[in-house]
């Protein structure tokens, strides 16, 4: 059976290619039909903020790629409740349907996956 991989994305979307390159790992794995999950943690939750206008800084729309995740077979999407609260992001306003998890649930989530990479 294929090993499951949890990608923890903790970079804000417009500080360089990091957020996109984390997403690319997920999209590439999804294309191979691997069991993948993606967790948005720390500044990574800013990727989920609604109504962003990346064109203002000449960037491509990351949200469009994020929304493609389920189509690539990456259906397990999570966000850290603590990170959202600290940043004033309300779970019901996010640009992507994610499960919002508290710390205990996040511990259990990380334990459940075969491999984890945080970037």
């Amino acid at each position, binding site marked *: 059976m294929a090993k499951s*991989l949890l990608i923890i994305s903790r970079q804000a979307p417009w500080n360089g290619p*990091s957020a996109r390159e984390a997403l*690319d790992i997920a999209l*590439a794995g999804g294309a191979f039909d691997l069991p993948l999950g993606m967790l948005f943690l720390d500044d990574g939750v800013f990727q989920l903020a609604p109504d962003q206008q990346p064109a203002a800084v000449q960037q491509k729309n990351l949200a469009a790629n994020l929304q493609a995740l389920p189509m690539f077979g990456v259906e397990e999407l999570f966000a850290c409740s603590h990170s959202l609260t600290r940043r004033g992001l309300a779970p019901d306003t996010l640009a992507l349907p994610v499960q919002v998890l508290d710390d205990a649930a996040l511990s259990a989530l990380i334990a459940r996956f075969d*491999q984890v*990479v945080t*970037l």
Partner: protein
Amino acid sequence: MKFAIAVFSPAHAPSSRRALRYAEAVLAGGHEIARLFFYQDGVHSASTNVVAPQDEVDVAAQWRAFIDSNQLDAVVCIAAALRRGVLDEAEANRYQRPAVNLPKPWELSGLGQLHEAAQVADRLVCFGGD
């Protein structure tokens, strides 16, 4: 046991050297390295154009020697490399760039190679940071 090792830092970052020392310890411990994968700024660790000052450790050269002498599979992510100007001959020709800084033993390939390595390895270990 089989290890997949992914490097996310350039040769001048402490974590590139740390990854190399770790990889050496993996082999010294009688284990196997399924693949080395270089992603994000880690693609700079593969650049043959790094010139380290004479009295400093040349981590890029040490990576090359380590991969050569142990005949390891060393893959550099092509999308990350193009973005950062790390090109093999084929890509330099394709995009009409004057410099080639990625000769053998490195291979340019896609992120699928990272997933494949992670699938066959017992452990995926990533290196980045200070």
